[in-house]
């Protein structure tokens, strides 16, 4: 569904990504793992276009989207759940979700999208009238995911959804991700530092190190390979 070839990008004069390749199959959960500062977030942002791309090619559903602006990519059904939540804290839960349905297609399906996210995250329905800033950390993370779902995506990219959450909530978030694949049929690209949990969840895994893909394989293969785990994941 998504194919990234020889991706290079960076900030200013500092190159972060080197010859990165990545493929996400339709209906799969693919994870991008690696320790801090190896370029995982940059990879997602470059795919979406919010970080400038230096070189390489990005194909989505057989079309070349390398040079499309971010908003066009969202229109095509790619969405990012950003790290650190980025909610509109002064707006209510309901308003945040409405904002999510910004693309034209999404406006048409707003009612069903609301139904969907409220069934996936019932707690958000209870909090509909509450200011997003007053929600708990876990609820905020769910709202960020729900808001992304409102754009009617086909491919959803998560940037560290478990960051800063209590272990119990991490489980809930990962359950929700699982449900998105099994019940809505979304394709998922997951960036995580929580290695164990993502290995259990994913079909295919890429290991990143210093801006490059150092290893890849099915989740089972990676789990079975002590070398990879020791060298790049520190476990």
């Amino acid at each position, binding site marked *: 569904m998504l194919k990234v070839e020889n991706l290079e990008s960076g900030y200013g004069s500092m190159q972060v990504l080197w010859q990165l390749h990545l493929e996400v199959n339709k209906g799969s959960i693919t994870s991008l793992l690696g320790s801090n500062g190896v370029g995982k977030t940059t990879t997602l942002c470059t795919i979406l276009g919010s970080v400038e791309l230096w070189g390489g090619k990005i194909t989505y559903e057989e079309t070349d989207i390398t040079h499309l602006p971010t*908003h066009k990519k*969202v229109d095509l059904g790619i969405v990012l759940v*950003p790290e650190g939540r*980025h909610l*509109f804290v002064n707006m209510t839960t309901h308003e945040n979700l409405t*904002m999510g349905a*910004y693309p034209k297609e999404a406006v048409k399906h707003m009612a069903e999208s609301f139904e969907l996210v409220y069934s996936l995250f019932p707690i958000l329905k209870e909090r509909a009238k509450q200011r997003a800033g007053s929600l708990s950390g876990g609820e905020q993370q769910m709202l960020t995911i729900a808001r992304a779902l409102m754009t009617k995506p086909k491919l959803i990219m998560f940037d560290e959804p478990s960051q800063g959450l209590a272990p119990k909530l991490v489980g809930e978030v990962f359950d929700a991700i699982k449900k998105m694949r099994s019940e809505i049929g979304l394709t998922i690209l997951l960036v995580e530092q929580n290695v164990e949990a993502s290995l259990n969840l994913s079909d295919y895994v890429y290991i990143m190190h210093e801006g490059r893909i150092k290893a890849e394989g099915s989740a089972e293969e990676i789990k079975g390979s002590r070398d990879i785990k020791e060298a790049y994941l520190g476990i």
Partner: protein
Amino acid sequence: MKINIAKYYPLIPVYAVYLTMFLVGFFVPGLWQLVALLAFYCALGQSWNIFMGMTGYVDFGYVTFIALGTYGMALGITYFSQFPGLGIAIIFIGLLLALFLSTLSAILEAGIALRLRGAYFAIACIGINEGLRHLIEGAKIWGGSEGMLYWKELTEVFGTETAIQLTTLWADIAVFIIAAMAAFINVYYMRSKIGYALTAIREDEDAAKVMGIDTTKYKTIAFLTSGWLGALVGAMAWGLKLTHVFPADVFVIHYTVECIVIVVLGGIGTLLGPLVGGLIYGLSKYWLAIILPGFQLLIFAPIIICIIIAFPEGVIGVVKRRVKGTRLERYII
């Protein structure tokens, strides 16, 4: 297309205030100049608010638009007075030139400054403003620092009688019309998809981007609209009314600061705010100048600081909170 009238209810109090101001100025002798000054502040506040209030970007160089608007009118009258047959069309040419020049500067600012955020954006705007002023003075464009005087040209085309009418009455009335237009556009934006996009940008630009909002496009729309309205105010309230323009008088950051004070006093991002702020600011400035001439700024600064600490959301921000849930709610945004 179905027009939803209820969307425009908040315009009722705004227009009621403008109408009252206009009638008071028109019928009470000696008050016209004061009312015109107030209308000028309200119109500027409202125009500036479209960009700053809705996107959260503080444009310190806003006065550039007002200044270039003034030059547009000056150029229109100076050069097209050779064709007296054009009559009143000369004023409209002046307005078009004002729009044209402000568009050019908006493109320049959008290209340079809108890529930046926060303080960097504000500083870049100041830089552009100062740069343009020194360009005009140094390269002796449009009369350089000696400016342009065009009262003679104006009287040649219209005759002294009409010229006086144009500068003392119609220029001020035009400011009222521009203020009314600015209010309408403000509501239109607030209640449309543009408004949603701009609010998202103000709250969190990165989030807005990943949700599929073309942030550059909407910022540019708001920036241009706000700049155009500022240029029109400049063209009328300075260009036509004063019939002269000097770079050292028009490219002055002081006016941007006045815009900020007006909008913050009244309530950032609200519709009524700039109007209320303009009235408070204009009236107190006028009043302080009478009772304590020379000390008005010294007194005014602490008053503003107190108001901002007591009502950080501005007067209308407080009122909005009070009327929430009552029948008045739909009239006040």
